[in-house]
């Protein structure tokens, strides 16, 4: 089999965004030798795209803020489906995680008295987002990156080697988590630059790979977001939870086509931007749902007063949670009141002086000027919903971030599910990365130490299978023959190529397959969902899965993007099936899941989680047979919310969300 480079580490972190780096820092500080693997260059992770800020109840801007209020906002935003213990830990620990960044050199915008300035954001009762202009994600990733370097400098002073305790493998992709029985034994991957294979033996693996947006056509996500961690967890036997909840950010760019989907930060609205339809009407006033009626302004006057006097006025409806705003925009466009390029207008030009806009929203000004030739200080932006974030993800233990059922596997950040319930509030993502990144690193390190020298060995057969799976696209022309060859070495949880007969057909272009997948998910499992369309989507996904077996590539293994995409397709197809199946199953509308045929939120679904697992973990992927599902769905009742946390809410509010029996428990 192909040559494989092998190394031993205590903890391997897959992904070098906010969660991955925070996990790596924690693991290394707790004494674990830690490797970080990332698909891009170090410091380029998708976290840089986060604009608005980090939500943390530091109470710098409003002294009434506290972790309890933050917890409450988070649960409201998630429509009470959140894994409440995660939401609690998140709200409690976020301020410490932000302050810690300052001790590592981060420079947030300041208040007049020298503390960290906090800004308003959708769904947050008080100004709560620590920020740096509109480039907070960049500040976060750079600070963590520089902390990693600082730790490497420490190691260098101690050992003469920068990478003795903490090493970043940049531009490497993990394709398999390796296991010894139930337990994690390492990861298999390849270097993108050279195409060489890599096995990192480690008893603990932290998944921090981010989201799945690249399965959708219009998305704010970067190419890396192919659901790798989700798929790795599934293939390793860990379930995913609530994958039907996909957040469509209400404001993405809609024109020009090449930038369609790129994010327009929520701060535009937090700082005074308003949404108008083609008739010039601030339509959001018509879309305030009942559960939020008493929290949002009813007139433009009141809404406008709120920016100056938030204590005595209610907030403008433009700042409703993202799912509400996205649906409203969708409805306006459908009703024929959209902008020329199929969005609505987001206007700051009539709301603030040009100079203030340029100072408060520099990246947005820049982005529209450079990419769309639009001067946002003089004319409105055109915006529409864009696939932004997946609330669902690896089912984890709230306290330890350990994936269920697979000892040694951890997940943090967007790849982990539960924290945000059915819808994530803006700003809660960056704090999520830090809080649970740290927890994952901590517990992974502890688990690795606990094993001492009883580490799970790496199964050679699994390495061979993984290598065969990775090489498949190069021999796609003779698909049947090579599949049989690969199948011969399949054992245990390998990618079974068994039953690959009947795969006749021409090689497929991975780019074409990817485009068809994106179109399918966008059109049929998008922001508004219908039963028939989702069934159609599942059929198409099954066909694509079969065709993807024949995805072939030209050239060689050195930095070959066609090959990389062919391998990523497996992950996107798996994850897309999870989304579609779960969305079909949940017959209600809640947060990031909207069913046209079940438009109301149903309290009976409040305490139901949907778990996706691999249908046939022993047999690997049932790729060849389009009629067989790869994913099995199970329902699970959630743990009741702890009474002291429930007591943070008014009874009148709880009755809107909770099922009868939950209220009286």
């Amino acid at each position, binding site marked *: 089999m192909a040559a494989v480079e092998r190394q031993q580490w205590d903890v391997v972190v897959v992904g070098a965004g906010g969660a991955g780096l925070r996990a790596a820092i924690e693991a290394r500080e707790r004494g674990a030798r830690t490797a970080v693997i990332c698909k891009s260059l170090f410091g380029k992770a998708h976290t840089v*795209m986060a604009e608005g800020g980090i939500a943390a109840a530091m109470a710098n801007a409003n002294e009434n803020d506290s972790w309890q209020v933050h917890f409450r906002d988070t649960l409201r935003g998630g429509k009470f489906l959140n894994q409440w213990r995660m939401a609690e830990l998140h709200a409690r620990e976020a301020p410490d995680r932000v302050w810690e960044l300052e001790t590592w050199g981060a420079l947030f915008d300041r208040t007049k008295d020298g503390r960290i300035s906090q800004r308003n954001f959708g769904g947050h009762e008080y100004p709560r987002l620590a920020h740096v202009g509109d480039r907070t994600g960049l500040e976060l990733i750079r600070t963590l990156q520089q902390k990693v370097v600082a730790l490497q400098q420490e190691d260098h002073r101690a050992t003469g080697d920068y990478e003795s305790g903490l090493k970043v493998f940049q531009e490497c992709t993990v394709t398999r988590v390796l296991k010894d029985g139930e337990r994690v034994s390492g990861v298999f991957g390849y270097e993108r630059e050279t195409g060489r294979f890599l096995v990192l033996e480690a008893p603990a693996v932290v998944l921090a790979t981010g989201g799945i947006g690249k399965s959708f056509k219009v998305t704010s996500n970067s190419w890396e977001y192919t659901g790798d961690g989700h798929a790795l967890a599934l293939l390793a036997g860990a379930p995913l939870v609530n994958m039907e909840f996909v957040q469509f950010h209400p404001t993405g760019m809609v024109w020009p086509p090449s930038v369609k989907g790129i994010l327009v930060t929520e701060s535009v609205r937090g700082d005074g931007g308003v949404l108008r339809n083609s008739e010039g009407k601030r339509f959001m006033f018509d879309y305030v749902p009942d559960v939020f009626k008493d929290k949002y302004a009813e007139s433009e006057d009141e809404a406008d007063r709120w920016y100056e006097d938030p204590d005595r006025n209610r907030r403008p409806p433009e700042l409703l949670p993202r799912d509400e705003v996205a649906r409203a925009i969708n409805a306006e466009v459908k009703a024929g009141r959209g902008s020329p390029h199929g969005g609505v207008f987001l206007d700051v030009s009539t709301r603030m002086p040009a100079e203030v806009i340029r100072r408060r929203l520099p990246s947005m000004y820049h982005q529209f000027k450079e990419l769309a030739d639009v001067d946002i200080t003089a004319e409105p932006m055109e915006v529409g919903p864009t696939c932004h974030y997946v609330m669902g993800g690896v089912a984890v233990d709230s306290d330890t971030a350990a994936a269920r059922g697979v000892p040694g596997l951890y997940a943090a950040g967007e790849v982990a599910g539960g924290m945000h319930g059915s819808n994530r509030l803006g700003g809660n993502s960056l704090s999520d990365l830090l809080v649970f990144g740290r927890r994952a690193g901590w517990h992974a390190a502890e688990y690795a130490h606990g094993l001492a020298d009883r580490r799970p060995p790496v199964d050679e057969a699994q390495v061979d299978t993984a290598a065969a799976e990775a090489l498949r696209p190069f021999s796609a022309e003779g698909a049947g023959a090579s599949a049989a060859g690969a199948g011969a070495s399949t054992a245990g949880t390998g990618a079974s190529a068994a039953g690959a007969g009947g795969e006749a057909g021409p090689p497929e272009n991975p780019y074409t397959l990817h485009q068809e997948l994106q179109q399918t998910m966008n059109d049929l499992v998008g922001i508004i969902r219908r039963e028939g369309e989702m069934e159609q989507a599942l059929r198409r996904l099954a066909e694509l899965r079969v065709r993807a077996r024949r995805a072939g590539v030209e050239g060689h293994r050195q*930095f070959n993007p066609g090959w990389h995409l062919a391998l990523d397709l497996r992950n996107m197809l798996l994850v897309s099936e999870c989304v579609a199946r779960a969305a079909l199953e949940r017959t209600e509308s809640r947060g990031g899941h909207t069913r046209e045929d079940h438009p109301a939120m149903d309290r009976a679904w409040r305490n139901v989680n949907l778990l996706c697992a691999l249908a046939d973990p022993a047999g690997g992927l049932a790729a060849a047979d389009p009629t067989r599902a790869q994913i099995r769905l199970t329902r699970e009742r959630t743990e009741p919310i702890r009474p002291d946390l429930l007591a943070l809410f008014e009874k009148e509010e709880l009755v809107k969300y909770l099922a009868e029996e939950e209220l009286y428990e």
Partner: protein
Amino acid sequence: MSSYEARFKVWRGDARGGGLEDFTVEVNDGEVVLDIVHRLQATQAPDLAVRWNCKAGKCGSCSAEINGRPRLLCMTRMSVFDRAETITITPLRAFPVIRDLVTDVGFNYEKAREIPAFVPPAGAGPGEYRMFQQDVDRSQEFRKCIECFLCQDTCHVVRDHEENKRAFAGPRFLMRVAELDMHPLDAAAGAGLDRSRAAQDEHGLGYCNITKCCTEVCPEGIRITDNALIPLKERAVDRKYDPLVWLGSKIRRRPGA
């Protein structure tokens, strides 16, 4: 919506050699050069290697040279070119090539490690940091850097003189020194580290002849030369070449100045 066929020359090859290859590609309204590269991948050259990520000018991955000028592929609109023009795309020419448009930017990560990290102040724990906006403004400008390394690529000190790579950190990392030196709470001085002096002695500030190409190419519009490099040179002069300042500091010590 209007589209047209544009002519491109794209450098293809690897460390062993290569050359410019001709392509004719469809271009649509509002597209950027990266869109064209992606169309090439999807239709004509599936294994064309290019590094990219956010496609919104925020991550600094897709650095390359377009018509000989270092640019971000995702932030170069096709509309800036004449339709009849043949557009040349090459990898960054200051770094070793890996394949096609992808170069080995490891030099930059090595230099990043050579800059001593932020030194937290003693006596202020997490949550106790107090800094004023006017004191963080300068360093915040430098922290806008997306590490696209275009400044490192265009700087003739290393672009035209491979042998200087050992001694010269490059604009990006000299700016990092300036950022830390201007950080209101950095306690390096207390720990015996004089960042301005180190800029001159360890990181090759003297090699910079302030010809401002770094500022010209910066996609974030950071005024690297005026706000980071020259102030750093002046601070080095304070330490090393100015007897008046030395005398002044002997006569009256100004704490915290």
